[in-house]
């Protein structure tokens, strides 16, 4: 029995790129400490939804609330909003000209205003927690894909976000590197981090998600606990999608 507002509420979110409508009225509510997996074919709108929540893409209509505040209202300080929402991208997007330490301390120093020594002390603690302390002086291109993605997660955590958005964070990794990244996400989930995860890793989704949402052509077609979605999906499109995944040997 909690009176706190949900961590995230999307209400009738529409988004178009030119004539192409990518999100066709998404309604989604995420409670605090809840882990939700977004599944669906490529182009179904998963990434776009995450980018809209982070305000990297302006929405055409509808509204998005984070912790009870409407972030899509005009006059909202987008930098302040983004500070509270961490996003991790499929392609890592680390800054190649900065060391691991530079990547992780950039936002704490520039956005929060910590001193270099304070920011580095905090960063070291985070890096240590994810087994990356010995890589702090390396440059991104000299790390494995798994290490790079873990650094990207640490970088997103450095501003102490209340909500993490993960956009297919294992899709660009070699299969043997996927586990180390999933373990990090698992640890975050156990720590109570609220997360919205777009993923193609169905086993992982079944394992970690409290709720699985199936997106199909910009519509949130079906959602429910993983057992229900994966074993007895109601919608025909969901059944077809899962059938294709099984045929591809991905589940």
């Amino acid at each position, binding site marked *: 029995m909690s009176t706190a507002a949900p961590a995230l509420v999307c209400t009738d979110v529409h988004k178009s790129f030119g004539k192409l409508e990518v999100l066709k009225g998404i309604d989604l509510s995420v409670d605090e400490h809840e882990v939700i997996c977004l599944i669906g074919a490529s182009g179904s709108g998963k990434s776009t939804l995450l980018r809209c929540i982070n305000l*990297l893409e302006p929405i055409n209509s509808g509204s998005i609330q984070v912790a009870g505040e409407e972030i899509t209202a005009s006059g909202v300080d987008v930098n302040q909003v*983004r500070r509270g*929402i961490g996003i991790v991208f499929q392609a890592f997007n680390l800054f190649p*000209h900065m060391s691991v330490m530079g990547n992780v301390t*950039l936002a704490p120093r520039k956005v929060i205003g910590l001193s270099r020594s304070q920011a580095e002390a905090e960063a070291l603690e985070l890096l240590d927690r994810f087994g990356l302390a010995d890589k702090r002086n390396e*440059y*991104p291109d000299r790390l494995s894909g798994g290490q790079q993605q873990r650094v990207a997660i640490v970088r997103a955590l450095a501003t102490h976000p209340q909500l993490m958005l993960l956009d297919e964070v294992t899709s660009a990794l070699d299969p043997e590197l996927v586990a180390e990244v999933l373990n990090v996400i698992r640890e975050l989930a156990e720590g109570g981090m609220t997360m919205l995860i777009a993923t193609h890793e169905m086993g992982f989704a079944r394992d970690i998600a409290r709720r699985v949402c199936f997106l199909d052509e910009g519509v949130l077609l079906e959602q429910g606990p993983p057992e229900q979605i994966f074993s007895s999906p109601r919608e025909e499109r969901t059944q077809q999608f899962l059938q294709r995944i099984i045929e591809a040997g991905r589940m």
Partner: protein
Amino acid sequence: MNGANGSDRARRGSLLQISSVWVAVASTVVVFAALALIIVNAPGWPKVKHAFFDPAEFRAYFGTIGHAFVLNIKIFLVAEVLILTLAMVLAVLRSLPGPVFLPIRLLAIGYTDLFRGIPTILLVLLFGFGIPTLQLSHVTRDPVYLGAAALVVIYTAYVSEVYRAGIDSVHPSQEAAARSLGLTRGQTMQTVILPQAVRRVIPPLLNDFIGLQKDTALISVLGPVEALQRANLGSASEFNYTPYVVAAFFFVLITVPQARLTDWLIARDRKRQMAGGRV
């Protein structure tokens, strides 16, 4: 067996290496010797040698032209700092997004179009002779300053385009990553985009700087005694072109170390950022 084979192969490999070095040396010597022979045996060579490569003239003018060259160095050092700064401002202005900044973008585009198009010597003349004729108070009439100002105006247009190419070459996902962390547009530009952009355009930047260094000689048309003007005077009094060769020698002398320094900087950066090496 294997070991013996391996060392055999290694020996053959190093023999190959040594012989390829000799081939390189031999072909270089043959080519340059042939060129030298052709030039030296040309019918007019004694005249050319006397007019352009007179050792006595070379020695006589080395000191005075070297002294005058200090003015060229001063001009381009100051101009380079101004150009680097102004061109950066221009490039950033031109990459401002959104309809609000359209007038600023248009001004920036107009500036580059105009000043990249004007022949440098025309602008040097226009500034050097035009501005004093306006008889404005508080505006310098010193031809060195006016000529340098013309160079700054022209090269700012060139260098801003180089910067802009660098900015455009940084993938938009870098901006997205920085903005997603809560950095403002300005902070993103300053800490994420520009550092990567500038690293990528160092070779073409150096290109423009060598161009600038040579173009400091254009200021001679306004009268100041820099290296080329000094060579002009020397050549006129001696009826000999060797002073020009002396001036050219100084220009080449300063560009070569800069080129090597840039190569070294780029190699060091690459080594540090890329896999497979430790600094």
